[in-house]
């Protein structure tokens, strides 16, 4: 059986690689920046062990304003910053800047909720055994909240996959861009269907991997 694709196969692999790079790198940035932000929000909250309502409000409102801005608007608004960081305002790297900046506050809020749900009794036990503040974060808050954090990170990755479709607007390529250029503008249904199928498989596998890991963490 032979099957003739309407566009070269390499276009698909190229688009997949672009999406993968964008989601992977901005996901990693969101993870490593989001967790400290979440910890900061958590310990500075009233009643937290570094209670500082002003700092908490300041960080909280920065996080909220980024979350309030739709991604497509954020991407345009951030062009000057993107140019400053990457030296260009088009391409994969130019998309990574707004993607990370929108995913980080999103993930930070989810991680914050997981941290908040850590049993205060555990924190107390750690204090009673002579743990210092940083040790409580390291040995109690982070490991105990890990299942929730991983669950939240999975949601963040899926959201990133979907936002990255808009990155075509800055010429970053990727699967979403492919679907829009061929599927929508040139009425190439085949491309559209293939891209959607790939995205479904991608999102499903990310979600399944995340769920599996969370289940493993919870059941040990």
């Amino acid at each position, binding site marked *: 059986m032979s099957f003739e694709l309407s566009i070269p196969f390499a276009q698909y692999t190229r688009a997949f690689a672009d999406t993968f790079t964008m989601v992977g790198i901005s996901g990693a940035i969101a993870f490593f920046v989001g967790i400290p932000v979440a910890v900061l929000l958590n310990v500075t909250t009233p009643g937290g062990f570094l209670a500082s309502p002003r700092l908490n409000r300041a960080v909280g409102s920065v996080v909220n304003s980024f979350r309030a801005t739709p991604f497509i608007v954020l991407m345009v608004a951030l062009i000057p910053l993107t140019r400053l960081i990457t030296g260009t305002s088009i391409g994969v790297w130019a998309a990574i800047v707004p993607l990370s900046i929108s995913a980080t506050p999103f993930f930070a809020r989810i991680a914050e909720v997981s941290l908040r749900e850590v*049993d205060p*009794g*555990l924190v*107390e*036990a*750690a*204090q*009673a*055994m*002579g*743990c*210092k503040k940083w*040790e409580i974060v390291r*040995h*109690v808050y982070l*490991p*105990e909240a*890990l299942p929730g954090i991983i669950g939240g990170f999975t949601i963040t990755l899926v959201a990133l996959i979907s936002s990255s479709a808009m990155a075509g607007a800055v010429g970053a390529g990727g699967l979403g861009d492919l679907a829009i250029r061929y599927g929508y503008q040139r009425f190439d249904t085949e491309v559209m269907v293939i891209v959607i199928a790939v995205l479904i498989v991608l999102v499903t596998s990310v979600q399944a991997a995340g769920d599996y890991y969370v289940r493993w*963490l919870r*059941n*040990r």
Partner: protein
Amino acid sequence: MSVNEFVIPGLMPLLQRQAESGTVAKLVNALDASPLRETRTDAVAVADKKAIGTVRFEALGKVYQSSAGKVSALEDISLDIQAGSIFGIIGRSGAGKSSLLRTINRLETPSSGRVWVDGVDVAALDENGLVALRRRIGMIFQHFNLLSAKTVYENVALPLRVARVPNAEIHQRVTRLLELVGLADKHATYPGRLSGGQKQRVGVARALATNPEILLCDEATSALDPEATQSILALLRDINRQLAITIILITHEMSVIHEIADRVVVLEKGRIAEEGEVWKVFGNPQHDATRALLLLLEHDLPQDLRATLVHEPPQDKAFERILAFSYTGAGGLEPDFIRIGEALDTRVRLIHGGLDRIQGHAHGRLLLAVDGRAQLPKLDNLTTGQGAIAHDIQEIGYVV
């Protein structure tokens, strides 16, 4: 901070002295072999020479600021707890037991007065001093508070890890501690897979990891079944005897105090109702609160009722009066609900209790609830003569 700073000065000779028999002795030998040195030089060390594990409260007060306003949880508490003793704290729910216990390791800061541990004012310690103090005070909790993301071994090792004890020594000590509490085979298990009793054993091992001189227990057996309770109590008694650790425990179970405590304090609304040797306090309670508590505990009230029972009739709310009827079996007197209803002249509800029949005599206690508005006859008149409906009737409290 130096590696061995958490070691209690003077404990090693003490441990050697105590090392005679049993598992605890095995532990002691193991700890003895580890290269522990005395490094603390301050006033604490001097105080330690006199007595290790004394606690002294001086005119202690605690006021909580809450959204509902100020709550005075403790008032004018002055108390001495001797080194090496088992000291019980009892009182109704909300009496301030946990608040008092938690001031010892400064999980709660007093609003007034002082707490002295081995002659050192706890409030005066800086962060390092506080951490050092907490390493000398172990604590176990009603809900165990084990870290679910760490194995049994890692849980017990954590206090040592954060004290920067070398790994080899941690390994040796944790292994011994797990042997001591009978969980050597569970070292790689996560707490989620343990029974309540096993979890509390891990809690005890963790609390003992840094060789504390004082062990605080906040309702440590309340979440356990009777058998697990017994085994934890036996463990605590062993630890107290063989390691000479002062144990301060809160409990709702009178039997626990009976069984292991030397002295007991009864708290009532944040104040000391009475304090003394257990046999004296229990044998001849001086305060209403103690009597009510003894009665309550004697009846082994179900948790929900115990939580809602109050000492004074609630104002402006409908409530029920809780009466305890006792039957000794004498004179063939048995609970007769029609006569009880007639005598009290109101509706009566049986809420708890039971009778044993011993050689044909009904023996036991019943808790009955009656409407709070009902005018009851004088209860004393109902326990004598022809009209007697029970051998003893006591009003033990009120529920809304």
